[in-house]
């Protein structure tokens, strides 16, 4: 099967994860580790870019559910972006758009964070 890769980019207080390939029960722990790392570092403003993801299974969806509460409790969020239509359909069926912010482009998501960032005390820009 095709593999799975994660790339991370930190930009100010926002971290973006680029995920690529097959996200299923076998590769979900990889994503879980990456998210756990961010949480451990106290980086709760997370954007996940799906542009290169070709498949996501229920285990993959579960990873986001496992973190969203912790992240939101810490005034952060997981925003999703650049979903190919097939992937969006999976999220959509399950009702994710009702709970998660999903953007066409990662820039929108990052800007959303930056916008809310000004209201927070610790970081000016």
């Amino acid at each position, binding site marked *: 099967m095709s593999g799975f890769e994660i790339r991370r980019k930190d930009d100010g207080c926002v971290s973006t994860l680029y995920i690529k390939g097959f996200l299923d029960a076998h590769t979900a722990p990889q994503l879980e580790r990456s998210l756990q790392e961010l949480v451990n570092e106290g980086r709760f403003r997370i954007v996940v870019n799906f542009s290169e993801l070709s498949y996501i299974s229920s*285990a993959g969806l579960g990873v986001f*559910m496992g973190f969203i509460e912790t992240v939101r409790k810490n005034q952060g969020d997981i925003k999703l972006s650049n*979903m190919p239509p097939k992937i969006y359909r999976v999220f959509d069926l*399950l*009702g994710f758009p009702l*709970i998660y912010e999903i*953007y066409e482009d990662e820039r929108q998501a990052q800007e959303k964070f930056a916008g809310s960032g000004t209201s927070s005390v610790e970081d000016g820009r």
Partner: protein
Amino acid sequence: MVRGKSGRPVAELGTSDPDLDEVPEVRPSGWLIPAGLVFAGLAAIGSVGGGTAMAGPVSLLLLAAVITQARGLSSSPRLRQGSAPEQIRWAIAGALGLGGTSLLSSIFLSRPTGFLGVMAGLLVLAVAGSFFAALLWLLIRSLAFVRQRKSTQRNFMILAASAATTAVLRGLDPSGADWGKHLSDGVLAITIVFAVFNGFRQSWVHYLLRRQKIAGLWASFLVTVLCVLAGSSSSQWTALENSAPFRAVVGVTALVGAIYFGMASGALLLALPTARVYDRRSKGLASLKHLSEMTSSLLDVDELIRIIPRLAAEVTEGDAAWLELRRNGKLRVVSSVRVAIEELEGRLLDLEEGISGWILRTGRPVVSQRLRRDERLRDLRSIPRHWQSVLGVPVAAHDRRLGVLFVARYEPFGFEPDDCELLLAFANQSAVALENANLIRQSLEKERLEEELRVAREAQRKLLPTGPLRCHSAVFDGLCITANDVGGDYLDYFRIDEDRVAVVIADVAGKGSSAAFYMAEMKGVMATLCRLVQRPREVVVRANEILSERMDRRTFISLIYAIVDTKRLKVRFARAGHCPLAHVMRDGTVRFLEPKGAGIGLVRGPEYRELVEDVEFSVLPGESLFLFTDGLTEAMDPQGEEFGEGRISRVLSEFHAHDVPTMMRGLVEEVNKFVGPNAPRHDDLTFVIVKFTEPAASGVPADPNSPAEESTELVPSP
């Protein structure tokens, strides 16, 4: 004689005879010893009665007594097949008996006594003397025959024959006339020479442990002394005019015994310095053998772990030993002998950095003879023990280093080069044993897991409806083909009352027994809720409340809950994040209904209520409903394309006019054709069909208007 001289001692390199003569012919021997005693008695009587004239017959009788008794004794398995230490013990008994008899006789016979006194003395001498002589001969034979060679039998037979001849000649002619003296001296010389030849046959010494060698040295020394004593005291029997035959038998036996056991003492003395090495070798071999026996019989890893340090300490005579194994990337002390694990763990701040880590990394052993001065083993010094020497070896099998094995001794320079090699060999074997046991454990675990899955699958199968359901003019049927494991799909349909049937289709995220467990719980929850609550939306909201509480945070369930009123032909359903419901019209067109909804478990709080709604629509006879899971839409062809809703729609149109079994068969065939003949199924294939048939020849309530009244088809945009 010439032949006798050329008979070389055991040093000659004869090929060892494979069929050792230790195959005793089965013979009734009970009468041999009594017969020998009778011969001895006759000899005594003959000697007293006949005087010197009877010397010849008396000598022969005595010889016969010794030979028959020796043969009688040799049939005793304890004497013949006993271990060397046992036989040495018997030899002491024999020599003690011979010496005792000889001394006792010399007391009786050294001064003039009455006829009865002489008679009693003679009888004792004859009976006991011949018996103990026989015993001694027999033991010399069996000791000399350990690791028998070609020449062994011959040399011993020559010795026995010459000794017998000497005894008879001496008995006949004690004073020694000229011709007789030369002859008997010659034969005596042959006896001595062959006694020495046989005296080189001391292979039994090698098989003794060091402790036994020391004991054996004392014992054979004692036997030698007793033999000398017996021989010399026999010359004191002056009161008896015809004591020569007796003196000859005792004397020759004592001579041969003294030579053999004297040489045995020498062999034992020479073997003592190397005894320790021999001991360790044999102990090491025994431990390795023990361990390899264990590996074949011991399936339990824990038991194996427990026994390894024990055997290691035994092999190297260590005062303490312990085993450290890799566990989750760290080394842990897993078992120890004569030192508590807690004592050892005191230093284990980070084992990887200490000497254990070094051994594990390099795969090389470490020997330290002065722990106090050895910087490499610094971390071991913190252990509150006064060990001076420490030996550590890697436990490795096929290049996989599992851990480290340590042995420690209190004395400095406690380990020899041999010990290191021995422990390395032992550690290698331990590693193989551990690996094997681990493999066995894993396969058992797998078997157990498979059994668990089988049970779960069985349980899951029982949760599904057993067959189609008919309610008024509607037929409900479903299918659930699981992928290889326990699936996460679930379907159910059951009557709520006279007219209404509840339909559930669900997909639990994840597979395996936990999915089966959630499924069972869901079935119970749904069966209860459908009677308490009317609206599908309420049922789903309540189900979320109940189920999400106990679900893993990363798990969710998508489902559709529908209530089909088969009398009024109305359908109301809620969709909790599940695939849409397909409504197949009479003309074959298919519409997918997808009201707003989120999977169960996605949101745990009361805000879930806002995320789900239900819709109601009417159906007509001839129409059908089709509920499915993502296993159908995501079924993939070899090129990686998904089956998708488009194909579902096409297949449904194609088969919509047929009865339910035909529709189901058609669908499965289409999917199989799409996926390909030898592609493994990745997901379950689950669906429910509800078909509203035409009431037989009755007037159909015509309702040409749009059947859907409230259906909202959501096409969310990001």
